[in-house]
């Protein structure tokens, strides 16, 4: 009974099992539900850290289950997979605490937490997938698990937002299915191999490979909110704050970006896709999305919609990093996967706090919030500065590597895009900070809840602070061996550019 073959499966099951049990729990069993949630999260964290330690030593973790006679489901824990799994596990633990606090006293929480753990199972599955078919399976499971969360409130707007979400993601899923079958037809295998498995395909198939690349990237682009396919993200903000925090800042959007990284590096191989000539259009689309997302965010008065458009623009950094096809740019793109997750989830937590404690949803209502809720706004400031790329917080490292990587790959125009996007980020984040800290507080808040001496409930206040500190630490302590940057370097030289 070699343990190494079953750990990836245990990691996936460790959130699936509590989820299924929670579905069965009646509404009032709050205590049991919290225990189940937290134990699931802690177990997963322990397993993941064991695997990280193992992979660091060079062990090999893989679970293989036969699906079709010559095609089987594979869960493999490579450095890239663990990178994303670690992110989603930590943030799941934090978001569960936040969700428990946020949904205090709201109806049908068993259903919410059930689907919540299903979502995390799907995200972990997406990360650990060893071949394209398993990736597709968990990718579609992610769509199915997130739909009920978006429609959780049960209002008509929620239903319509759910419909638009589905229209995009189901369409994206169909594209990926077509691409995968066609690829399977051409190559006969779908296993993720470090530098792509398409190099031996004879050239007369190259036009077909180009179309497959477009199909796969379009399908993944839906979830990664690339320009034409990002429409669903701002509308999905109707979901409760923990949903928009974990899902639309970390799980769903990152699954798309992670998928793009997987396809470009492990299916096509970055050199092969570069001389196939498909990476430059992807770079242009990603660049355009960065600018477009920031521009749209500039004029959104609703706070969560502004954050949503900022997510649209920030996630395209990863796509840009991948599309530049240089080793340093890869590190930048991959490390932004974690940094953006940490920073964005802090911002969404704070937005949720403001909505929950003071009933503020609009940016114009945020005058003087810094005085009423100093700690939340401090976390928000750290997140916002990170997004702008101000040095102490994590954002600037990924921008640094992206910039240097772009120059090293000879694509100087990327530097202008990065500069423009930083300016636009300042333009839509600094006014918020200015009005929050320095404008006088209004006489009364829309609907204010008092939580005794501290500004808001512990469960709501702790998570943003934790993630803000993590973002700060990821920025300052990048030299440490297990920091996101070092791990991104391991990924780059182990997976993508081995000589």
């Amino acid at each position, binding site marked *: 009974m070699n343990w190494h073959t079953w750990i990836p499966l245990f990691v996936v099951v460790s959130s699936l099992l509590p989820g299924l049990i929670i579905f069965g729990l009646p509404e009032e069993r709050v205590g049991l539900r919290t225990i189940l949630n937290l134990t699931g999260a802690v177990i997963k964290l322990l397993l993941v850290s064991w695997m990280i330690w193992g992979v660091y030593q060079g062990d090999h973790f893989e679970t293989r289950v036969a699906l079709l006679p010559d095609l089987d489901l594979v869960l493999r824990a490579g450095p890239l997979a663990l990178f994303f799994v670690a992110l989603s596990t930590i943030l799941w633990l934090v978001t569960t605490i936040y969700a428990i606090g946020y949904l205090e006293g709201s109806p049908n929480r068993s259903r919410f937490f059930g689907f919540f753990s299903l979502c995390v199972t799907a995200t972990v599955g997406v990360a650990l997938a060893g071949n394209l078919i398993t990736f597709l399976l968990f990718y579609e499971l992610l769509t199915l698990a997130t739909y009920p969360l978006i429609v959780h409130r049960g209002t008509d707007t929620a239903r319509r937002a759910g419909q638009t979400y589905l229209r995009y993601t189901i369409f994206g899923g169909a594209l990926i299915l077509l691409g995968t079958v066609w690829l399977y037809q051409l190559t006969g295998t779908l296993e993720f191999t470090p530098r792509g498995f398409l190099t031996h395909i004879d050239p007369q198939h190259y036009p077909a490979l180009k179309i497959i690349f477009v199909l796969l990237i379009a399908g993944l682009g839906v979830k990664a909110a690339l320009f034409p396919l990002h429409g669903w993200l701002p509308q999905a903000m109707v979901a409760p704050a923990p949903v928009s925090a974990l899902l639309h800042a970390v799980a769903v959007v990152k699954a798309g970006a992670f998928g793009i990284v997987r396809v470009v590096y492990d299916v096509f191989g970055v050199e092969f896709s570069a001389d196939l000539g498909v990476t430059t259009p992807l770079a242009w689309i990603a660049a355009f999305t960065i600018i477009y997302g920031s521009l749209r965010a500039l004029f959104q008065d609703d706070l969560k919609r502004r954050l949503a458009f900022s997510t649209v623009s920030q996630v395209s950094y990863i796509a840009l990093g991948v599309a530049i096809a240089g080793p340093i740019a890869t590190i930048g793109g991959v490390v932004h996967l974690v940094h953006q997750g940490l920073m964005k989830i802090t911002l969404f937590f704070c937005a949720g706090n403001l909505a929950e404690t003071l009933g503020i949803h609009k940016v114009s209502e945020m005058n003087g919030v810094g005085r009423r809720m100093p700690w939340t706004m401090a976390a928000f400031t750290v997140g916002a500065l990170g997004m702008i790329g101000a040095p102490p917080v994590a954002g600037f490292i990924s921008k640094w590597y992206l910039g240097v990587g772009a120059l090293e790959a000879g694509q100087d125009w990327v530097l202008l895009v*990065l500069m423009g996007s930083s300016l636009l980020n300042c333009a839509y984040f600094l006014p918020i900070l200015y009005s929050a800290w320095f404008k006088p507080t209004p006489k009364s808040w829309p609907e204010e809840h008092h939580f005794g001496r501290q500004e808001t409930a512990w469960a709501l206040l702790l998570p943003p602070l934790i993630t803000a500190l993590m973002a700060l630490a990821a920025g300052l302590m990048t030299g440490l061996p297990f920091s996101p940057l070092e791990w991104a370097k391991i990924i780059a030289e182990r997976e993508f550019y081995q000589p």
Partner: protein
Amino acid sequence: MIDAPFLLSIIIIMPLLLAVGVVVSVTQRVAIKIAPWAALPALLAGLLLDDGKLQLPGMLINSYLLFDHTGRLFLLMSAILWLATGLLHQAHSGALYAQQKIVFKLLAMTGCFFMSLAGDVLMFMTATTLTGYSLYGLLAQEKNTTTREAVNVMLVVLVVSDIVLFELLQLLGMHAVSVDFIAMRQAFVITEQMNVQFGLLLFGLGAKIGLLGLHFWLIPVFITSHLALRPALISFVFSAGFIGWLRLFPLGEVHYPAIGELLQWGAWLMLGYALLLGVRQIHRRGVLAVLLMIVTALWLSIVAAILIQPELWLSLNRNLVSAVTQMGLVLSALMIGQGLHKHKPAWKHRYALTLWLAIFLLTVAPISLVSHFVSVNSLTVASLWIGAGLMMFILWRTHFMLLAAAEASSKSGGHKMRHTDSSVTHYLFSGLVLVGLMTAVPNLKMLSMFTVFSLFLLLGSMLVLAWLTRFYKPTEPSQLMSGFIMQQFKQGRSMIMEMTQYLDIYSNRLQKSIKKRFSPIFVLSHFSRYERSLNRWSVALIIMVLIGLLVSVQGLLNQ
């Protein structure tokens, strides 16, 4: 001297710990009491510690704290200035939001010390941003809107200059082997598009020290900043501006006469503009902003000279740094002290004496550097002398104007003495000037007899000139340059808002019409009519017969 580089980290950790102490309610009272003395460890370290390097394992990308001659001098300057700020703050601190101000003050202080100790580029960028944002937090506490606008403009300029600097570092990063200053300087030397990078550097660092064209935020901020924050402001401006030049730009290693010439003429232009602005400026602190521009002009002319003859730099290095710190100290002394004579008529004579000494020190700093260039570059010598003269003229003129104003107010029934106890300010004023004198001593030794004589000659002539022009008052008061910029900014913003509103309305209308015409229900209703026809018996059965026939005919055809 103690050789213990690990002590360097205390300089940074002490203020941060205090900041946390202020925030946490339990230790709040104690922390607020200690806060003003937070700069003490930095001062002691500056005096006692040897030069050294402290590797910070985890921090950023293999970054380390560097403590060398320039670092020491700037650290000392920042420490003194922040000590002054702490004391002033304690004396004048308003009750409102004291806690928030102290936190921002401690953070800004950490940033300033970080700047002088930063060993690598990213650490330096972190320090600049940290100081910039926390200083903005401090300055924006003011109530009146003019201060708010001025400080907002300052923030915009700082942020833009940071981004430009970040891009420059990325351009250098491509060639640099690692992130620290030495590697960056090498990269600067071997790059081919030198003018692009020098332009970025000029823009990035110039924005902070009032380069011509980026100077518009200096005057309003200097005028409106709170008394206690002025030394801090000077410390930030000098560290962010000049340390960047000294550490990042490979002075003495790159020979670039073309840019040198251009820069020299630029310096001259700045001096001329400074004269024009100085004369029109009647506010005593506005004048000091102009002085800062003159200092920058002199700095650029020196840099131009070094670009033309790189070998000058070896000898010039130490004097230049001490001259700059000396000017910084004296400038901050003037920032606090200039309006003091109104408060304590009794101390009038002591005040006048220190003021004269301050003016003398400020002007002697550039002159002391003349000896390096006297045989080499006449243009630089001329600009140094002119710069010194200009400073003297402007300072004297403001002094006389203040005296005239004092007499006028004393005749009109005595100006009510402001209640704040200004003794602390007095002591700090004279203290800063004395420290300035101490830093100037090594330079003064270099002065030849001839230069001293010509200096006094210049002093006398400027005195007379200032006395003559003290009655000339510009017609309308010096309008805040920043106001004009703010209007442009506001109009641009409202125009963009209108345009997007129009876009939104138009796209909504387009969407509605598309939805109505191609909505699925509309299209599908066509199908339901066909469906009903299919449901009739006769149609269905005819189709069935057709299919049967079709199949059999198919078979018969290709038997």
